[in-house]
């Protein structure tokens, strides 16, 4: 491992950087190029009598030259307590980040980088107003060394109270270095190909189908006129026939939707969680995974805001749970900052919880249940639209009215089951909130991680002495609906007392 990082002189990347930058450019170019192709197909435009391949060749050559110069002009170095990155061929761009503003340094590899054996290094800044600071191609060992050096420099620059935190990051890093050399500890959880298939098949297919539909729709309709043009003649004449065959087409398209959605979630799962390795110890959690883009994340223990675990009907059957470790972050960046581990077994969940929530073993739990008002309110709000729709539709086809009791019964049943599932329990130090019948999920949080508390009470709740209690954390809100007002007030006061008397750092 090169310990002599001479960072005071401007450094270049690994020469393979040319290829990495080239493919990055190509992806941007491809987006532009696709629209040219559509324009070409649509109107047979002639660009100086060049064929499509000719244009593609010229563009590729241009980007190859550009990528070479982008590589040549890309430097990084250290100057006066700052990490500096310079890049840009036509417009020079100089990014500077003081050591104490470095939030995290992460390594990642996309498929090109994996093939070329290089690693990208990304520096996250506090209050990220900068563009992302990324060095796309470094030797793996060099990248590790640089990562370590930057974190050490950050450590030296910081105040005392952050020292512990950084110790933890550095020791995590040492563990990662050992693992690079094949000497690392055994992961708490690793997903094999079989696990991956099971996780993919038990995804929420409805959700992934809708996401796919939205993305494809958004992408395709940019080129609407070019796609539909060749079919215009058919579309008009078949419109009527499609309506007639609607009864056949609808079930087929529903079936097709689910087949495609299942495939899509399977592909998504494999891409994201391929070779997942999840490590947990007293210092924090770390995870590596990904097929095309191999990414590594870690969250040190005191950055963890709360842990969520949940399941869905399919996963319940095979005993799989999804654990989500939530880190502080803005709502927009929430996904990137939380760490999700699918396919965990009950025993692994218990191990993770034992590491970070020792306090849950303490006795003297108190509990609160939601009031049945929750079931009746849910039933009312959910059934309002569909029932009024059916009611109106019944004036044309009275047979529709028979559906009303069936729909209402379903909604009432699920609302009732949901109301039964809502449950809050807490002891001296922690709070556990569980809710959900179809998608059961639980949250565990330490009191001192709460930022502030809200209590809500509608006029309907006031008569029955109920209230909502909302715990705002830096990673999102936890909401306990329709609990007894007296208990809610007591817990409200207790949380404030715990937060105000605690001098532990919430992040």
């Amino acid at each position, binding site marked *: 491992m090169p310990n002599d990082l001479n960072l005071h002189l401007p450094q270049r990347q690994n020469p393979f950087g040319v290829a990495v930058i080239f493919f990055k450019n190509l992806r941007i170019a491809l987006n532009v190029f696709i629209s040219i192709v559509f324009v070409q197909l649509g109107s047979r435009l002639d660009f100086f009598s060049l064929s499509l391949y000719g244009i593609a060749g010229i563009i590729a050559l241009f980007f190859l030259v550009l990528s070479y110069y982008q590589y040549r002009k890309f430097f990084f170095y250290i100057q006066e307590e700052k990490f500096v990155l310079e890049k840009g061929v036509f417009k020079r761009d100089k990014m500077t980040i003081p050591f104490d503003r470095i939030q995290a340094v992460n390594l990642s590899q996309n498929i090109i980088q994996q093939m070329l054996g290089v690693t990208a290094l990304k520096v996250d800044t506090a209050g990220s107003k900068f563009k992302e600071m990324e060095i796309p191609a470094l030797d793996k060992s060099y990248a590790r060394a640089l990562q370590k050096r930057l974190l050490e420099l950050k450590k030296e620059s910081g105040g005392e109270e952050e020292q*512990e935190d950084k110790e933890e990051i550095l020791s995590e890093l040492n563990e990662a270095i050992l693992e690079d050399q094949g000497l690392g500890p055994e992961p708490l959880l690793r997903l094999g190909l079989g696990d991956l298939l099971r996780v993919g098949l038990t995804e929420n297919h409805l959700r992934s189908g809708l996401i796919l539909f939205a993305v494809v729709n958004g992408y395709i309709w940019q080129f609407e006129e070019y796609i539909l043009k060749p079919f215009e003649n058919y579309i008009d004449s078949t419109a009527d026939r499609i309506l007639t065959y609607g009864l056949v087409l609808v079930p087929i398209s529903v079936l097709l939707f689910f087949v495609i959605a299942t495939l899509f979630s399977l592909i998504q799962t494999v891409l994201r969680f391929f070779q997942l390795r999840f490590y947990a110890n007293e210092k924090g959690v770390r995870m590596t995974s990904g097929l095309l883009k191999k990414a590594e994340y870690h969250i040190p223990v005191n950055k963890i805001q709360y842990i969520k675990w949940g399941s869905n009907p399919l996963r319940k059957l095979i005993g799989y749970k999804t654990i989500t470790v939530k880190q*502080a972050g803005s*709502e927009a960046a929430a996904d990137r900052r939380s760490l999700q581990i699918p396919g965990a077994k009950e025993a692994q969940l218990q191990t993770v919880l034992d590491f970070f929530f*020792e306090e849950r073993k303490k006795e003297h739990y108190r509990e609160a249940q939601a009031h049945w008002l929750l079931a009746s309110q849910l039933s009312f709000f959910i059934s309002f639209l569909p029932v009024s729709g059916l009611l109106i539709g019944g004036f044309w086809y009275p047979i529709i009215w028979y559906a009303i009791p069936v729909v209402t019964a379903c909604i009432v049943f699920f609302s009732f089951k949901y109301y039964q599932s809502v449950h809050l329990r807490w002891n*001296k130090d922690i709070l556990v909130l569980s809710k959900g019948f179809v998608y059961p999920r639980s949250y565990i949080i330490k009191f001192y991680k709460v*930022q*502030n*508390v*809200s*209590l*809500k*009470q*509608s*006029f309907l709740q*006031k008569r029955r002495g109920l209230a909502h209690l*909302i715990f*705002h*954390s*830096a990673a*999102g*809100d936890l909401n306990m609906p329709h609990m007894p007002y007296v208990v809610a*007030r*007591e817990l*409200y*006061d*207790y949380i*404030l*007392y715990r*937060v*105000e008397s605690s*001098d*532990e750092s*919430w*992040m």
Partner: protein
Amino acid sequence: MEQENPELFENPPVAPDQLPKLEMEHFIPLEREYLYLRLSSWGILFFLLLAVLLVLYFTTDLPWLPSLAVYTGVLALVFTLEIVGFKVKGYTLRKHDITYKTGLLFFRMTSVPFNRIQHCELSQGPLGRLFDLASVNVYTAGGSGSDLSISGLEKEQAQQLREHITKLTATYA
């Protein structure tokens, strides 16, 4: 860390009835002028609505009696709720936190401990300038839904409050 140095951090058990309670009687009501401010902003809205109704009345065959009845009904309801609900609005400042409550039909109370405040600012709208009122906004890391905004303070009083909070917050940072 707690488990590493148990002797550094004392944490004696506290009986639930000894906990500091947030007493509802200790809330400070907002300035009376703030009610007038709210009523005038509703007044402006209803005035514009009336203008729209008049235009509709002269251009279409809008039935004037029912429309007027609905208009006055909504106006009376809004003003009643504002006047009665104003008594609910209030804030209280304790040694370690600040609390704001509001809402007659939908009551909401939020408490922010001073050791969780990210920053604190003063804001004043055009109507606020007219009535010499300002709001103090308190931000935490708990997301946009959890931020606290205390409206209806005298400008000078608001400035004092902001300085007080900023000073207290600084001692924790």
